């Protein structure tokens, strides 16, 4: 109880409340401008949060990401351009409804589903993570090795597109994580005699390069400004909402459940949650043929899932220190920089930080309602903000932000190099999330492996000697074998279908 009261104190003060409000406005703005993603917003925010106390810093990140995911629906509805990748699954439905003069009604449902999904995911986070943390307290380096490997494997097997490209992206992240002094021997690795690299590659310049500079380069490489607003609706935001909620409340619950679950898997973020929820909703709907033609049901499915995915991603991040998506990967880095170790012990300290975080999640999702409503009403302002003015300002933020972490120009070089490589890879459809997970989890993977080897005198079988460790190991091996198992199953099914007529 005392910790809870401390948590309330940490949140309900002028500084944190102002930060939440400002972050909500920032999140709406970034989400509503096409080409600026939620991850980019968080990456740009980190240099500022670096100078804040932990609670307002986390509040800023949580609020910005939740708001940006919702606000991404605004340009998706009006311009057919998803503001963030999480809105891509239902962009056709939203835009076609806008064509029928129902843009505000659509965005109103987006808003309600986003708030519902966010609160649903938060409830799961609040109720599930403390119990999981108690289990996690029993974990040793063996379990953490398998958990890190499971997270990295998920980032390959769950990513959209080529698995080879996801694997290579992951290798880049892992390579970056090896830079610096080796934990066991103290030998410098890939430092090239640069003193600033002895402590390892700072992940914030990498984030800024990967998610902000990369987007900037893609913007300047294209000639499309995409700023023509064909029409603006004047329909009511919430008038039709009760009717839709009554018809589609099971979709809201199912979408939120899927979103939380997918979000909790490392490497799978809000965008994948939205796609899967949309596909599942379509498969179970009585009006399958209406999906993609301007149908509210698909929007309810996916819009609930993307915001619940944001909350779900925090479950493994807080309990195990294993990020669920790119945003929580950034948060884990921020927590480490502030001297806090995400993991089960965060639930045991008496500072009330964990309660503060839960309260922040509720507030971030509740504040979405009034600010989101205002954003829908003033959609024109956000959509018509010219990117040719915004992008140069963002580049300057990138430069100063990267420099400000260590007051070192080496970090600006790192941002530049990573941004350049990321833009080449992004043009060739390489996913970026595995690289970030590799960078964040690489050290955990290597350190837990080395510690385990020291404990067991180099006996590899010791990774299967503890029950939970053996279970996690089996899960990882099963995941790696899953393509082969799927292939064998398909072949078996194909053969049995061909043989069946001959038997009859």
């Amino acid at each position: 109880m005392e910790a809870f009261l401390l948590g309330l104190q940490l949140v309900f003060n002028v500084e944190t409340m102002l930060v939440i409000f400002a972050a909500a406005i920032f999140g709406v703005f970034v989400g509503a401008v096409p080409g600026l993603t939620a991850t980019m917003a968080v990456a740009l925010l980190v240099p500022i949060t670096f100078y804040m106390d932990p609670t307002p810093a986390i509040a800023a990140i949580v609020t910005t990401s939740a708001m940006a995911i919702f606000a991404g629906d605004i340009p998706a509805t009006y311009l057919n351009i998803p503001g963030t990748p999480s809105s891509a699954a239902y962009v056709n439905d939203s835009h076609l409804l806008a064509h029928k003069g129902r843009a505000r009604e659509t965005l109103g449902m987006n808003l309600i589903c986003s708030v519902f999904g966010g609160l649903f995911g938060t409830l799961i986070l609040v109720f599930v993570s403390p119990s999981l943390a108690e289990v996690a307290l029993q974990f040793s380096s063996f379990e953490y090795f398998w958990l890190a490997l499971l997270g990295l494997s998920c980032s390959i097997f769950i990513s959209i597109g080529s698995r080879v490209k996801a694997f290579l992206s992951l290798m880049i992240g892992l390579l970056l994580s090896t830079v610096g002094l080796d934990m066991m021997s103290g030998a410098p690795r890939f430092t090239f005699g640069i003193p600033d690299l002895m402590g390892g590659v700072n992940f914030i310049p990498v984030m800024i390069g990967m998610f902000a500079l990369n987007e900037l380069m893609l913007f300047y490489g294209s000639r499309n400004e995409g700023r023509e607003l064909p029409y603006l609706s004047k329909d009511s935001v919430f008038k039709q909402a009760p009717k839709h909620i009554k018809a589609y409340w099971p979709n809201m619950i199912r979408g939120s459940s899927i979103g939380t679950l997918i979000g909790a898997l490392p490497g799978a973020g809000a965008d994948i949650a939205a796609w899967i929820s949309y596909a599942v909703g379509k498969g179970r709907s009585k009006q399958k043929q209406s999906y993609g033609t301007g149908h509210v049901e698909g929007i309810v499915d996916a819009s609930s899932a993307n915001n619940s995915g944001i909350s779900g991603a925090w479950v493994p991040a807080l309990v195990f220190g294993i990020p669920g998506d790119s945003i929580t990967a950034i948060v884990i880095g921020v927590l480490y920089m502030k001297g806090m170790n995400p993991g089960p012990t965060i639930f045991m300290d008496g500072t009330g930080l964990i309660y503060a975080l839960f309260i922040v999640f509720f507030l971030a999702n509740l504040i979405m309602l009034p600010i989101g409503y205002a954003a829908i009403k003033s959609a024109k302002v956000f959509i018509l903000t010219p990117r040719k003015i915004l992008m140069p300002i963002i580049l300057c933020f990138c430069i100063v932000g990267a420099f400000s972490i260590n007051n070192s120009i080496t970090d600006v070089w790192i941002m530049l190099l990573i941004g350049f490589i990321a833009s080449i890879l992004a043009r060739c459809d390489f996913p970026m999330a595995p690289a970030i997970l590799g960078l964040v989890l690489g050290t955990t993977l290597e350190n837990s492996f080395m510690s385990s080897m020291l404990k067991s005198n180099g006996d590899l079988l010791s990774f299967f000697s503890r029950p939970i460790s053996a279970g996690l190991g089996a899960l990882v091996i099963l995941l790696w074998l899953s393509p082969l198992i799927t292939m064998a199953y398909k072949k078996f099914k194909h053969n049995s279908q061909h043989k069946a007529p001959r038997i009859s």
Partner: protein
Amino acid sequence: MRDLLLGLAFMLLGAVVLTVASQYPTMASLQYGPSLFPSLIGGGFLIGGLVLSATQLPTLKRQLSGTDANVGNIFDLRSVLVSLLPIALIIFYIFASEFLGAALCLAIIMFVLMLVRKTSLPLALLVSFVASLTIYFLFSRYLLIPLPEGLLNFWG
């Protein structure tokens, strides 16, 4: 074609990582040294690069035999050059900020980028001036980041 080249580049990177990793010291007390993970990563690059290149070979064969209509026009040179402009401007900042100062460099960067996307001259000047000073004072005065003052310092 792009994937084929990238696959080869990853293989080359893998070979370099393996070579560098092989030079790391080994310690008698440790069964696995600092070279283990870099070596695995280098191997990963080699295998991944090989698979990526190999999957592109049928496409390359079709292109060489002239049956694939998508030969040429792999990239638009102008758009590639313009996309490199932010990189060039960051390099300009790295080398010029100590002398010119962060505020002036940021203003120049914004001004050039706005002109490239055909922003009107007065608007580009106004936004560059106001935004660069805002960013400079936010970071140097509020967050106490020692951004280079350059000419601002010279003028006192």
